[in-house]
């Protein structure tokens, strides 16, 4: 007769009391997960999270109360969970899991690792650490009503990076700078502007009119002439936006007139741009001020944030936020920089105002602060119940793993509505590892197309190795017979190389670069394919992956939730390597037949890839559908990643 303790066999219960498990993330999924783990009988748990508690977490991260706002999530989660089971051993780390302290040795302590993350960079990293340590990993994500759980075991299943995830949607520079046509373009512009004025200036985040826009020229020679002209154009153009602003004392009205009047008038001179487009209309501060009439104060029944102000309202908001941010900068002292944060009121006000003014100029309907925040901050709507369900499933998969029943593990998808086969929860058999995976294959290798005369070493390190290939601290050697070191992860050692071009080191078509990340125990061989024909604003291409293209017209209308796998606040189109744990839960993309209604920010976008998956019971698979582009309306700028959509049914 089987000896049960509760519903579990005694052997399993004993194993739960002795084994050590790691929970990465103490947010929406993490809180629920910790509760389930201690109640199920896990006695040795470590939890890590770099974030602190925000009031918007309280609707679902139930281990936190109002009084905990501002404190460490990992620490408070531990304290609250201990109340459910005072005899459990819980260790909390208020830290980033990507910190080199958490090396392979650290991971090897655990029998099981469970991710409860909200960004792709960390997921990639933990994926590699678990592969290196050969520890089973349970991945998970939620967004709105949807969720997903999957088990990753080296050699047995696909790793997290086996299936290429679509790279982030980027907007061409000239769309942002010259010809915005959607609110999102204006919001991205406003975030760039914030950085140019108050934060870390970035050459890829220019906000001034782009004179070298090929669309502006009537003939190719003119483009070249314009480009040279802008370079030669006196010192005024060379002065950075921040320096210029400083020289005016961050005078809000002067800033306003430059950005929303002078620059717009300049754009109007590039008349070819406006042959087929509605031309922008410049704003003048004085004119607006003179024509203000006292508006009725409508006490709407909605949230203040959900109201759309008039133009003058946003003018005032612009001025007010500039003045507040100016004070913040002054307080911080010489050389200070602010970091944009959607939960920082003046920063959010600034972007709301600037984006709306620009939208108005370009004849778009203005948006409420609520909606702008959704887009600018990559906010994923979240309910308490979805995380509860997913966290329950995670523990159940964990129990299978600890019982030695890996074959019974599944990927499970949570739908909003039952599928045709009545399933709300759909288990699918785990796929085996992909032989060509550039992470878990025995000798990972990729081919990258780039221009060796235009790509700098720094670009290779930051854009390609870190952002695209998820390395944290790469070391790169050229396979040139001499083992020339191009990049060293030791600080300062190869800094001199940063601004040199790859060609300067003899790298050309066919060259091979060996890239290592010793922390992740990961070696990637990069084959260089030299080309001078990349699309504008595209710095490199990984061969074998199709770039994002506009979706072909689809016969069947399917609304899919656009969900991100990353949630960083950076305005850059690609994942920032800066750590900025934002709240919001873990998400993965899941195919849904439902439209997400809600109050606007979360309207569905169309994107979908169906993978071959066998439903456990019927064994049926569904066919691949070509990957479509991602609609831009609600996709926010940076950090929107779409995972593969999985076939259900």
């Amino acid at each position: 007769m089987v000896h049960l303790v509760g519903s579990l066999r005694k052997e399993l219960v004993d194993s739960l009391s002795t084994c050590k498990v790691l929970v990465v993330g103490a947010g929406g999924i993490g809180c629920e997960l910790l509760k389930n783990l201690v109640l199920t009988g896990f006695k040795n748990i470590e939890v890590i999270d770099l974030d602190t508690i925000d009031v918007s977490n309280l609707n679902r991260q139930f281990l936190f109360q109002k009084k905990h706002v501002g404190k460490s999530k990992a620490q408070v989660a531990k304290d609250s969970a201990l109340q459910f089971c005072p005899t459990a051993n819980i260790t909390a780390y208020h830290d980033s899991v990507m910190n080199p302290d958490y090396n392979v040795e650290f991971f090897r302590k655990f029998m099981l690792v469970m991710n409860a993350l909200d960004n792709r960079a960390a997921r990639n990293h933990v994926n590699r650490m678990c592969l290196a340590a050969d520890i089973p990993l349970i991945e998970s994500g939620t967004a709105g009503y949807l969720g997903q759980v999957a088990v990753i075991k080296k050699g047995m299943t696909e790793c997290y990076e086996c299936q290429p995830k679509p790279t982030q949607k980027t907007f061409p520079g000239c769309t942002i700078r010259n010809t915005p046509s959607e609110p999102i373009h204006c919001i991205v512009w406003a975030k760039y502007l914030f950085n140019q004025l108050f934060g870390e200036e970035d050459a890829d985040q220019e906000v001034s009119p782009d004179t070298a826009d090929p669309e502006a020229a009537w003939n190719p020679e003119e483009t070249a002439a314009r480009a040279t002209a802008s370079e030669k154009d006196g010192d005024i153009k060379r002065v950075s936006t921040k320096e210029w602003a400083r020289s005016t004392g961050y005078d809000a009205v002067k800033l306003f007139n430059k950005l929303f009047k002078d620059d717009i008038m300049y754009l109007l001179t590039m008349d070819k741009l406006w042959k087929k487009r509605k031309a922008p209309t410049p704003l003048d501060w004085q004119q607006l001020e003179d024509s203000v009439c006292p508006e009725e104060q409508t006490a709407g029944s909605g949230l203040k944030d959900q109201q759309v102000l008039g133009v003058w309202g946003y003018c005032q908001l612009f001025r007010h936020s500039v003045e507040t941010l100016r004070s913040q900068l002054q307080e911080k002292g010489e050389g200070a920089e602010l970091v944009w944060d959607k939960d920082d009121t003046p920063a959010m006000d600034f972007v709301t105002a600037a984006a709306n003014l620009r939208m108005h100029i370009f004849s778009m309907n203005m948006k409420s602060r609520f909606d702008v925040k959704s887009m600018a901050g990559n906010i994923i709507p979240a309910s308490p119940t979805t995380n509860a369900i997913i966290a329950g499933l995670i523990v159940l998969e964990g129990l299978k793993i600890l019982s030695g029943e890996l074959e019974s593990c599944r990927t499970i998808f949570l739908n909003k509505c039952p599928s045709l086969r009545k399933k709300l929860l759909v288990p699918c058999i785990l796929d085996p590892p992909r032989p060509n995976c550039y992470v878990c294959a025995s000798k990972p290798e990729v081919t990258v197309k780039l221009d060796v005369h235009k790509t700098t070493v720094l670009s290779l390190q930051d854009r390609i190795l870190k952002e695209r290939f998820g390395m944290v601290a790469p070391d790169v050697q050229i396979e040139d017979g001499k083992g020339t070191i191009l990049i060293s992860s030791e600080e300062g050692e190869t800094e001199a190389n940063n601004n040199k071009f790859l060609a300067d080191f003899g790298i050309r078509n066919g060259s091979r670069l060996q890239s290592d990340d010793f922390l992740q125990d990961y070696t990637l061989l990069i084959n260089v394919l030299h080309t001078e024909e990349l699309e504008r604003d595209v710095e490199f291409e990984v061969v074998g992956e199709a770039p994002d293209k506009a979706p072909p017209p689809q016969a069947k209308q399917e609304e899919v939730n656009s969900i991100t796998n990353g949630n960083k606040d950076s305005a850059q189109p690609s994942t920032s390597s800066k750590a900025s744990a934002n709240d919001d839960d873990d998400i993965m993309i899941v195919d849904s037949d439902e439209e997400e209604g809600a109050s606007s920010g979360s309207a569905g976008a169309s994107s979908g890839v169906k993978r071959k998956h066998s439903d456990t019971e019927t064994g049926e698979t569904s066919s691949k559908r070509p990957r479509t582009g991602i609609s831009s309306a609600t996709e926010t700028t940076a950090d929107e990643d779409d995972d593969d959509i999985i076939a259900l049914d």
Partner: protein
Amino acid sequence: MIEKEDAVISEEEAAQYDRQIRLWGLDAQKRLRGSRVLLVGLGGLGAEVAKNLILAGVKALTLLDHEQVSEESCRAQFLVPVTAQGQNRAQASLERAQNLNPMVEVHADTNRVEDKPDDFFLQFDTTSTFCSLKDALEVDWTSEKAKAGLKKTPVDYFLLHVMLKFRTDKGRDPDPQSFAEDSQLLRQIRDDVLEALSVSGDLLNDDFISYCFSEMSPVCAVMGGVLGQEVVKALSQRDAPHRNFFFFDARKGNGIVDYFGPN
């Protein structure tokens, strides 16, 4: 009756409920905010549902339970402090439940639900049911149509019959303390039930017995999540509810929605 909505939602509420307002909208949130809910039974599943509803921001939640906290309670119920054995379950859960969200009124009621007068229930917002549980379970399995449908019917449906019969006969749920005796009875009931429904005895093999003895936290979490979401849907009058049973098989990971009732 859901109370007339306040015109304005406070800034505090807007900040706290921001992420879910972005999901189901402000109107839905206001309706939740005006709802009074009665929750009967504070076992593992009840605690999960209580948590989910309190976090969602209902106006008031009454926890009704006449049972006392036992050793078993602590295994899946996180609202009850470990020191509370012997106390009434609803009462013992009150403090932690309230702390989940001070903006919700949480009450404890220690009476039996059967002892409550009809008008007690009027103070709560009712959820419509498609049919009574009894009707749902009285399916004629001898008809051809039913037989055809049998293959697709979740096994858990029959397990439900067995558990209900056990509860009716014994006045309690299976108890680990009397594992051997209760297992025997469960097996017997299984045979009787399946025979009475004219379905094959093979449908529910002996494995099921070990699952009948207690609640498991992760399973409560899944069920509590689905159930909680259904309540939110009903109160907010947004999105169609599942019709009308939800079965979850934790071993396989299947979560199935199926309809049982008069056709």
